[in-house]
């Protein structure tokens, strides 16, 4: 068990390092001159452009820029934003809590709605609940979250006034964006849980359990559901990635703080140090959640505990 965790942590480090390097490479080869963009036509002379390029170290060869960035990163120095001149690390740390809160709430919505509807629809196959659950599944998967977000906003904030349309202060501000984003994940989980449950219900051991006279409730919730949870757990790990990328749009729609919003702005402005920083943090969150998911398999499924 401990060995598995250590291995997973080590591979996680590789994933974080690898994604940072890839993004660095991509930002480097992308067209567009950050210096011309920063000056935005205000450059007074070619010398001014060369000066700024030198100041930013952009006149150095690729391998030097690359190694310098990573050496600084290892020292905990994420650099400075090219637009606001702020140090990147505090800027991101300031915004991380808002994104984590949103990711947490939307993950909770996904898991609760997803598992509940998935189980109910499998139990009441072809009933009204099943039809409803399948609709939620299809809706969640096919509707872009920003569109759901705008619809929720128009109804619950602007028409009914129940929730604020923007901001990231109170718990109320989390409700609408949490649902808009959570429905996407719920869509995936409903379908996954429903299918797995149906598969498992038709397996011989369920028949055995019923034959020995176990109550239907116990059969369903203690045995069928627990066996269906492994694929759902894997799904949740992957889904966190979806949710994190979803925050980029949702945070903008609901004018929330968060690293997704900084990322969107930084990409537009080609503010490479900020893009790098946000990708680094996103990778860390994503990887940590997946390590947790791995560990939780063994809690759900004793066979995994024994086999390792």
């Amino acid at each position: 068990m401990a060995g598995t965790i250590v291995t997973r942590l080590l591979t996680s480090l590789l994933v974080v390092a690898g994604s940072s390097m890839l993004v660095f490479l991509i930002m480097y080869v992308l067209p567009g001159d950050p210096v011309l963009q920063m000056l935005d036509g205000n450059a007074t002379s070619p010398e001014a452009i060369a000066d700024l390029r030198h100041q930013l170290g952009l006149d150095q060869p690729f391998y030097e820029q690359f190694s310098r960035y990573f050496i600084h990163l290892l020292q905990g120095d994420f650099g400075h934003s090219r637009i606001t001149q702020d140090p990147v690390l505090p800027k991101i740390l300031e915004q991380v809590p808002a994104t984590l809160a949103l990711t947490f709430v939307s993950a909770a919505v996904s898991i609760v709605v997803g598992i509940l509807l998935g189980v109910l629809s499998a139990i009441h196959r072809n009933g009204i609940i099943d039809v409803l659950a399948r609709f939620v599944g299809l809706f969640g998967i096919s509707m872009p979250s920003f569109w759901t977000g705008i619809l929720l906003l128009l109804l619950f904030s602007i028409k009914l006034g129940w929730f604020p349309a923007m901001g990231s202060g109170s718990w109320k501000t989390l409700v609408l964006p949490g649902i808009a984003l959570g429905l996407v994940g719920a869509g995936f989980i409903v379908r996954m849980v429903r299918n797995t449950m149906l598969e498992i219900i038709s397996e011989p051991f369920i028949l055995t359990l019923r034959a020995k006279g176990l109550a239907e409730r116990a059969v369903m919730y203690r045995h069928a559901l627990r066996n269906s949870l492994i694929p759902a757990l894997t799904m949740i790990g992957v889904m966190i990635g979806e949710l994190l990328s979803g925050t980029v749009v949702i945070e903008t729609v609901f004018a929330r703080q968060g690293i997704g919003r900084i990322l969107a702005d930084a990409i537009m402005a080609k503010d490479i140090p900020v893009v790098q920083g946000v990708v680094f943090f996103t990778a860390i969150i994503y990887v940590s959640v997946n390590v947790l998911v791995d560990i939780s398999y063994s809690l759900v499924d004793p066979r995994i505990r024994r086999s390792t």
Partner: protein
Amino acid sequence: MKRQRFIKWATYVSLTTALTLVLAGCAAKGGEATSSTDSSAAAPAVAKPVEGGELTYALATSPDTLDPGASGFAVSHRVFRNITDSLVVQLQDGSFQPWLATEWTKSEDGKTYTFKLRQDVKFQDGTPFNAAAVKANFDHITTSARGQAKSLIGPFESAEVVDDYTIKLILSQPFEPFLSGLSSAFLGISSPQAIQQYGDQYGKHPVGTGPFKFVSWTENDEIALEKNPDYNWGPPTADNRGPSHLDKLTFKIVPEEATRIGSVQSGQLLAAEAVPPQNIAALKNDPQFQVDQAITNGTAFSLYFNLKSDIWSDIKARQAVQLAVDVDTIVKTLYLGTYDRAWSSITPGLLGYDASLENKIKPDLDKANQLLDEAGWKKGADGIREKDGKKLILRYLDGSPNREKRNDIAAIVQQQLKAIGVNVTLNITKDTSTPLKEGNFDLFGNSQVKADPDVMRSIFQSGKEYANGGTNWSNLSDPEIDKLLDLGSEESDLEKRKEAYTKIQQYLIDHAVILPIYVFPYTVAHPKTVEGLKFDLLGYPQFYDVSIHK
């Protein structure tokens, strides 16, 4: 282990998705200065302003910095205009009045300005306002690397303290737009004490002499200002003279337009900027709400021909396009009557605007076809014209995201030019700077905000091509125009200045260098209880006179 393989696979897929997202968003946004201007938004006569209250105002984008001397963004100007005052103020007619300066003189050679300063003014941190403070601001600007301020002061050389309340600003050559620059908040005067204390973090702790004090800035959320109770030196453009009516002024940053406008409609915020055309009509019909529109002065949004392009260096070809593009239809279709059509390179509010250009060019397909025939372009089998085996292609370059529906303009132009056998290829990209630098385009859309027609010097003077770090997108190079632009910049006789700018504007249309499309109105939606919102010559909102009625 099947499961582990699935996890690995899933990890790769997610990372790829994330990277694709990054990629999709990447690239430069091209040369574009934003900003806005003013005029038509005359607020109804206010009986007696109510004191107190908080105005919440939704901005569509976030400021870069609140250091006036270092910022390049119009949105930042909207915020720090309230924190800092300027030496002079520019009126709607383009003339100037005293503000922090009580009077000024210009030397015979036009290179030295001497300002007498008010003696009763204090910065919000208690630092006295005097000649040394003004000098410290100019020193701060000249040492910083970027920002609008640096281009607004032009050939500025040095500031000299004559006595406590007299300062001399010395230029290396005459520069007529100087006062106009000084009136801008980009050259608003900051507390020298604060500049020194906060160093490169000054942009997060601005201190000026203005009617509102900076309180806090929560990134991507809000910027909070509060009343400066000592304020007693309002500009002559305002009704108020003493402290502001509002207790608090809070800017919320709300990029999504449905959220921004919806928040005002539902009463969660009191005002929002950048109202989309489709909302303007609805809000105007609502008895509770009002939409203020202020013209953004500067250059109109125009399509600039690349005069170095093989095909389009031919004036006949350009004139054919000029006659085939139906600008009225474009503007009416896309902006539903909320934007005005442009006729010249500059907007009607600027000094020297040539009104004789209005209605001069009318769509005429026959004439357009005839011009292309004369230029040797013959229609091929597919309806596209050809000459010497080469197709008549127009490479239209436009920025992304689709700001002010400019990409839709491109699509309509593409349709309209089909009628005369021109094949328009669209290049809509975030990175407009690369094609501009490499000359891989024939037509490019842009607008700039400035209070002085000298804005044209950076766009049409030779030597200021984009590849040289300038904004001469058209690569126009005509010694006659260069001479007129210099004359406009240096001539102190107002009539002669106007004459120079008239000639330039006519040249641009007669030689079909540009196709002016629209004049951008800065729009603000607010309930009628919010009164006294005014706009300056550039269309920037002025909050000093605002009051909120119950």
